[in-house]
């Protein structure tokens, strides 16, 4: 790439106050390495830990549920997506993006919309209900990630969808937490 192209990337990263950006396949080892990178850069005090918790949840979400996958160096099939951590001065903005199948997008959107209608007490009750039950069909984790992200941000989370092509929709999560 020529300097002009690199400068464009640099300028975007600078103006968006990006601390870290990763695009690619998220194996567990990559998630752990990115987490170490964040800790080396920011320390691990209680506010960083809250952000870190959201970051890991978003990363494992992409790893487990992205419709775009690749084979990691350890031979496992992992989800591909993008993770962006930005620092606005007063807040951390933790973002993820990945493809989902169009046929699954409606159900995911309904789930996200539902989460956004819940107040603190209702979220807690919903979390309690889900942690006590078996993971939902097709879930590779505890099926609690989106609920805990919504709780940890005090509702400062936005789920969004953009058209991608005839098969896929681009799904993003933007979570904001105080520094």
């Amino acid at each position, binding site marked *: 790439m020529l300097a002009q192209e690199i400068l464009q990337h640099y300028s975007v990263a600078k103006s968006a106050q990006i601390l870290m950006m990763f695009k690619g396949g998220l194996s567990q080892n990559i998630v752990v390495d990115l987490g170490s990178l964040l800790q080396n850069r920011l320390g691990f005090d209680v506010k960083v830990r809250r952000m870190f918790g959201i970051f890991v*949840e978003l990363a494992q979400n992409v790893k487990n549920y992205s419709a775009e996958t690749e084979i990691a160096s350890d031979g496992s099939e992992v989800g591909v997506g993008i993770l962006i951590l930005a620092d606005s001065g007063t807040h951390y903005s933790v973002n993820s993006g990945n493809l989902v199948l169009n046929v699954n997008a409606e159900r995911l959107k309904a789930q996200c919309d539902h989460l956004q209608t819940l107040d603190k007490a209702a979220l807690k009750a919903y979390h309690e209900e889900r942690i006590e039950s078996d993971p939902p069909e097709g879930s590779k984790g*505890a099926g*609690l990630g989106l609920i805990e992200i919504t709780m940890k941000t005090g509702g400062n989370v936005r789920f969004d969808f953009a058209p991608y092509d005839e098969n896929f929709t681009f799904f993003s999560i933007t979570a904001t937490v105080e520094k």
Partner: protein
Amino acid sequence: MESLIINQTTQTPRIAFDAEAGNGEIVGVSFPEHANDFYACVHEWVDQFFAEDSTRTLHVAFNLNYFNTATNKELRLLMKFLDKHYTEEKSVRITWFHEEGDEDMEDIGKGYSVSLNVPVSVEAV
């Protein structure tokens, strides 16, 4: 009975259960890829501990400063498992340590101290 020792890694906590001393601790951070597999050994160890001598006392200390949602679920299962032993007349007590000022961790510990029968002491460090 052998002790259960798993060294801490960047993604998993130190696990150390000592049968002689009758205590166990889980210390550090936890976001393994398969949380249920990781914590299965603790269930097995505790079952064996009380199978060998049901009159023994077990004190389990949790001292975690970060864990992911899948671990949260496994900790819930482990807590309920310890609670089951307690309600079956075993001598069990739990201490939940949290960093001073870490309200999220404090709240989780307090939730356990309210919802379980087994004594759960919540302490700031």
